[in-house]
């Protein structure tokens, strides 16, 4: 069980990339706690063990201890090296772009609303007024997001993906994910993470992941509604 299951609140990872991230997170987190605890204990030990007592003489004045100094340079270097290796491997996997995904979603950000277009089917979801827009995605499929902004910089963050990407006007970006078998409703998963002005705080969206066949139904329904109106 990962430590932050205790903390609740965060949706479980829904993509294989996010699984990857979770595993790296666990390593870093436990290591961070370990290192912080080690140093805290060391400090505690030092201030208790070496506190001034009555009749203390001047303590030894030795200023250098090269082996020790080397040790606390090299050991962290090795730890950092290992962490870096993990990061490089995973970040490259995460950044891989799928040029032939099951679904392409075009994300358009503008102050302070989201628009999600499904170019293969002509469906378009636009946020309006009070309602947060809903990003609907199929389970068990690969999705590539194409991002563009109409005004300032925004950031497309789906917490269940453990991933965000800035949307910079003038330079469209993209990323791919492989969504797993995780159909469900994630009302708090979608956030604009780059401060974008007045109503940045309410520039959120909801995420719904449907089984593949339900997703096809949803697309068909949207197309029908779209052609009516």
């Amino acid at each position: 069980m990962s430590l932050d299951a205790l903390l609740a609140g965060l949706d479980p990872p829904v993509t294989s990339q996010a699984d990857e991230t979770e595993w790296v997170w666990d390593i870093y987190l436990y290591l961070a706690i370990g290192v912080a605890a080690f140093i805290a204990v060391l400090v505690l030990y030092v201030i208790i063990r070496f506190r001034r007592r009555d009749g203390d003489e001047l303590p030894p004045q030795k200023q250098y201890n090269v082996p020790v100094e080397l040790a606390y340079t090299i050991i962290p270097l090795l730890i950092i090296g290992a962490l870096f290796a993990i990061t490089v491997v995973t970040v490259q996997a995460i950044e891989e772009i799928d040029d032939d995904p099951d679904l392409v979603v075009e994300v358009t950000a503008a102050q302070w609303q989201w628009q999600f277009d499904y170019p293969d089917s002509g469906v378009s979801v636009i946020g309006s007024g009070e309602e947060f827009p809903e990003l609907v995605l199929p389970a068990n499929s690969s999705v590539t997001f194409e991002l563009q902004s109409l005004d300032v910089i925004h950031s497309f963050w789906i917490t269940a993906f453990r991933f965000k990407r800035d949307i910079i006007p003038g330079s469209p970006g993209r990323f791919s994910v492989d969504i797993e078998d995780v159909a469900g409703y994630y009302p708090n998963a979608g956030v604009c993470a780059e401060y974008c002005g007045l109503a940045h705080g309410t520039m959120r969206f909801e995420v719904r992941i449907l089984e593949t066949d339900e997703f096809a139904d949803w697309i068909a329904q949207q197309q029908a509604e779209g052609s009516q109106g």
Partner: protein
Amino acid sequence: MTALDPDRSAEPLGGVDHDQLVSVDDVLAGGDDGGDDGSGGDEHGGHDEGLPKTITGWLTTTDHKALGIAYAITSLIFLAIGGSLAGVIRAELAEPGEQFVSEQLYNGVFTIHGSVMVYLFAVPFGFALANYLVPLQIGAPDLAFPRLNAFSYWLYVFGGLIMLLGFAADGGAAAFGWFAYPPLSGAGASPGLGADMWIVAIILTGTSGTLTAINVIATITMLRAPGMTLFRMPIMTWNLLVTSFMVLLAFPVLSGALFMLQLDRLFGFRFYDPTDGGSPILWQHLFWFFGHPEVYIVALPFFGVVTEIFPVFARRPVFGYKGLVLATLTIGALSTSVWAHHMFVTGEVLVVFFALTSALIAVPTGVKVFNWIGSMWGGSISFEAPMKFSIGFLVTFVAGGVTGVILASPTLDYHLSDSYFVVAHFHYVMGGTVIFALFAAIYFWWPKVTGKKLSERLATWQFWLLMIGFNTTFFFMHFLGRDGMPRRVPDYAPVDNFELWNRIASFGYLILVASVVPFVIAIVKSFRAPVTEGADPWEANSLEWATSSPPPEHNFDWLPPIRSERPVFDLRWINHDEVGNPDVAEAWVDREGIADNWRPLAAELAGDPPTTTEGDQP
């Protein structure tokens, strides 16, 4: 543990026999005041400390000590202002939904909170330390360019005022965050005068900082006392030297970038405008090329503070002095090569390169932490206020450091960037550490500046309130960020745990406010108290303790021989065979008949001829 401690078995050195110790006060008082009275006492109370006495005096002063004090007071006022703005933030976030302030005002408040804290409080307090301490620590009469120094100070004051006056401008203060990303900071999205004023303010304070940096570098290069070689400078001075060099690299880049931004805004230039060939990413590179060094510009002077304090209260030399200098230089160098880790999520930078440099910086930082612990190891530690706050610094810094390693991994940053995790992280490394070290510095050097000590009892209260308040406010923000709360929002999803952690954080803020009370009382009490302290109330090491408290105009009537980075320590122990540095004794004897302040110390104090120099006596 023994591997770390090959020497604990060794006998302690010398005896702390106060009759044998030489105090600076005895030397300053001249031959007629021998004896073991460690504190110089009242005879220093009446002497002229050279600080201005009138308002005109303060407005026109060019004395580095007066300006150092002015910098400190001004930046503390800005801390109070920034802290009050934080109160607005915490009040608004105590509950989901909008309660106290409008979105527009909230955005202005966090922008000015961040800007005040970074540009007007933290960096200038570093300059306060540089102003007051650098000349004293290297044995100089003033900074190299006193009038330039005063000019820098006033630019900073005016810049700060302009930033705050932004709230009065039509349309309110700047509201684009402290890193002002275009196009949001452009004329289209942020048309108000407040934004222009913010830009002007930071150009002014940036220029002020650049000039101060030149001044500090020139001073350290040209005005060191004889014998004060580079590798005998206190770590504090080293850190300020490296800080100044980083300022020299970073601040002009920021000023230039801001100037370009202002040209975009006013005259329709297109440096950052994506619709017309400009590039928002250009700004980000320029800004973070300044912005990352900036966080070390903030931090390094405070690393210097605790590096001065740990050895004094542990009665040890600073452990691994040369390693520490090297670590400081490495941090300075690396910190200018990591800037794009703030841009991982743009997808437009070399993540692997910057992940590597960012991770590497943890190593010299870790070296510093272990050197601090090493300076206490085997020591005889007492826990007066400066030491308490320094230990508070150490613990807080480590907590912020480990989350920094997490954020340096793009894999993880993709989730955590721009979330409350980041808010927690940077408040640990540049809020908490700065505040702990700042109070450590105030408690430590207050006797030097005023000749009085601050109340230990009140300091203890302040310390614990700060420790508890700080962690209550900021620790749970890690959870908020990891759970998906973005930064810079006046409102958040009404999810249970968001509400819980936010409420706890806002409660913590109240404890933080309470922690100010004992400090203010201590200061007020101190103003009323008589001068009691001599030159060297803590039995410290570096040169600023070799002059009276407060120091006279132009700092030194007399300097001890400088043969290590601890001239005052060396003087104190000059009569002890085991501890005393023979070079110092020799230099002392060499002064016979030349220097005004030579006297046969040991003979007077202990009634014996100086043991270490016996052979050299004619």
